[in-house]
């Protein structure tokens, strides 16, 4: 299976008052054509920054990609001229965000914002076509009465509707990759189910690849083909989804999976949990980044962050005991 996107050794840093911090530190992963890659991790682990780096949407001048390459069909996005970048961004790679209210411009009607996309990327299209296409896109993402909704404003729509609009906008250029950054976190479970279903249907239809960023392991399990687990700026484990859930290797992944309350669990029992808190980017420990919270920690862990080891086919983990656990 071909990889459509490859990220190699990406390092992205931010300027803060306390100096530069690496939000993403040597991350490598790849996205397969027509498949969904899930990036999972807790707040501050660098999952969103990775996606912004791919889009080259880092806030300048504070955010900078220090090194690494991002290959989109063998083109390094990081090396592109700005004008070439515009041909890729929104055209070949689109993105949707967590909070659709802030991602939409409140002063323009929904229709206008969709038409805008067509006008930017398909300048030759006449306005009749643009209108038809836009309405068609709205219908495609399951918006009832798209002609009517066309002239409405973002605040007149519900959260789910707004996220559908965002998806419509992202997909109107038929991109090859869709980056979805926590697209359902702000939504209710019933709506989340709708949106996830919609995304899966659209993927089937268009054959696009999706990078799905979330903190919710349940969502990962439902929609992803491959999973990358991030912790404090590093990838600590990556594997196909069934493999990962069945044979988690890294203590963090294991802890995470065990700490989720499940419906079928016995009530009021003590939940397994990972002690301590996620380290801030300013106080990342030397050596293994997870060592402070790891119950299997040995002195070796303090020396350096362990290398990625292929513990099983297509299953990689960055731990000193990839085999020894469980």
């Amino acid at each position, binding site marked *: 299976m071909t990889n459509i996107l490859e990220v190699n050794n990406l390092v992205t840093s931010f300027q803060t008052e306390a100096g530069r911090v690496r939000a993403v530190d040597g991350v490598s992963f790849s996205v397969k054509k027509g498949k969904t890659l899930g990036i999972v991790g807790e707040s501050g682990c660098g999952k969103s920054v990775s996606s912004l780096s791919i889009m080259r949407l880092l*806030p*300048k001048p504070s955010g900078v990609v220090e090194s690494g390459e991002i290959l989109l069909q063998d083109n390094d996005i990081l090396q592109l001229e700005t004008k070439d970048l515009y041909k890729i961004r929104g055209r070949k790679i689109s993105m949707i965000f967590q909070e659709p209210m802030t991602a939409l411009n409140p002063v323009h009607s929904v229709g206008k914002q969709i038409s805008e996309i067509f006008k930017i990327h398909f300048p030759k299209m006449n306005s009749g076509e643009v209108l038809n296409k836009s309405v068609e896109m709205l219908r495609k993402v399951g918006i009832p009465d798209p002609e009517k909704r066309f002239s409405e404003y973002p605040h007149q729509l519900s959260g789910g509707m707004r996220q559908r609009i965002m998806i419509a906008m992202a997909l109107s250029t038929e991109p090859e990759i869709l980056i979805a950054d926590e697209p359902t976190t702000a939504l209710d479970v019933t709506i989340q189910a709708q949106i996830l279903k919609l995304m899966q249907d659209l993927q089937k239809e268009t054959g696009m690849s999706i990078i799905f960023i979330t903190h919710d392991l349940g969502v990962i399990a439902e929609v992803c083909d491959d999973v990358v687990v991030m912790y404090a700026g590093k990838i600590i484990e990556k594997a196909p989804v069934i493999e990962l859930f069945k044979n988690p290797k890294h203590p963090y992944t294991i802890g995470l999976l065990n700490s989720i309350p499940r419906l079928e669990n016995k009530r009021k029992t003590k939940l397994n949990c990972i002690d301590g808190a996620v380290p801030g980017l300013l106080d990342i420990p030397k050596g293994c980044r997870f060592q402070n919270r790891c119950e299997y920690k040995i002195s070796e862990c303090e020396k350096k962050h362990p290398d990625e080891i292929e513990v099983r086919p297509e299953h990689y983990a960055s731990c000193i005991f990839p085999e020894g656990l469980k």
Partner: protein
Amino acid sequence: MIKLNPLTIKKIRRFKSIKRGYYSLILLTIMILVSIFAELFINSRALIVKYEGNYYFPTYSNMISGKTFGLGENYDYETSYRDLATKFDTENSDNWLLMPIIPFNPYEVDLKNDSYAPFPPSLKDKHFLGTDTQGRDIIARVVYGFRIAIFFSLFLLFVTYIVGITIGCLMGYTGKLFDLFFQRIIEIWSNVPFLYIVIIVASIMTPNFILLVLIVSFFGWTNMTWIMRTITYKEKEREYVLAAKSLGASNLRIIFKHIIPNTIAIIVTFAPFSISSGIVTLTSLDYLGFGLPHPTPSWGELLNQSWENLDAWWISTTVVTAMIITLTTVTFVGEAVREALDPKLHTIYE
């Protein structure tokens, strides 16, 4: 020492790191201090007089008449220390005195028989930046004028903030009819052409300092009130306020312990700009002749004089420079405060 919230310390540190604003604050502080103790630098009274073995310190004392220093039997009025200095020089005795750098007070008319004010800058006459049309020293007028303007602004700030915070807080917190009532009042109030009203009032009653502060704040309280109302409105819905409420805290406790401390950052941000607008207000009122009564030293009056005497370049140059320096420093401080309290990195996207 008061223990400062580390966030506050951080803000102060951030403020210090904004050099332009930090140095402006230092400059402004020096300016204010100098103006407070202006009598030591710019005054017609001597700092120290030694006469017949006795020491006198006239600067902050009661008037010492010329009789005391043997200037004549009928010399019942304030000694002219400059004349006294000349007398001591010619007498060749032990008596001596020390004059401030600029030996004039801002009210003193230093006129001559052979030429006419305004006099250009002169080292010999010790009018380093010349005099105005009545022969009063420009530096003295500018410095004492600054003192009045800055204190006017501070008082104004104090009064408008007290009123603004009280009413604004109540509006935001209680809401309902009180809020509705004051909202409409403020809308009407802020459409009153304030300067004209002040002019009308001032033209029929020659305001003094306090009165002028009150008149101006009478029309100036709405801004702060509006801001406070909005902040309070926002703050009172925040969960920490609900948390205090759920603990059983009283409304007063919530306002004073929770809401007001959390609005201080915003209030502080507005303060420097209020000060500069206070200075501008006083100056424009004085310029138009509706400010503090003559002969109070005032920038507005000097500006007016400089417009009437454009050939006397030293008047306009001095007062305009003084205004520019003051207003820019205040503005720089304001900018830096705003920056320190609400740092927003200037960001662009590719």
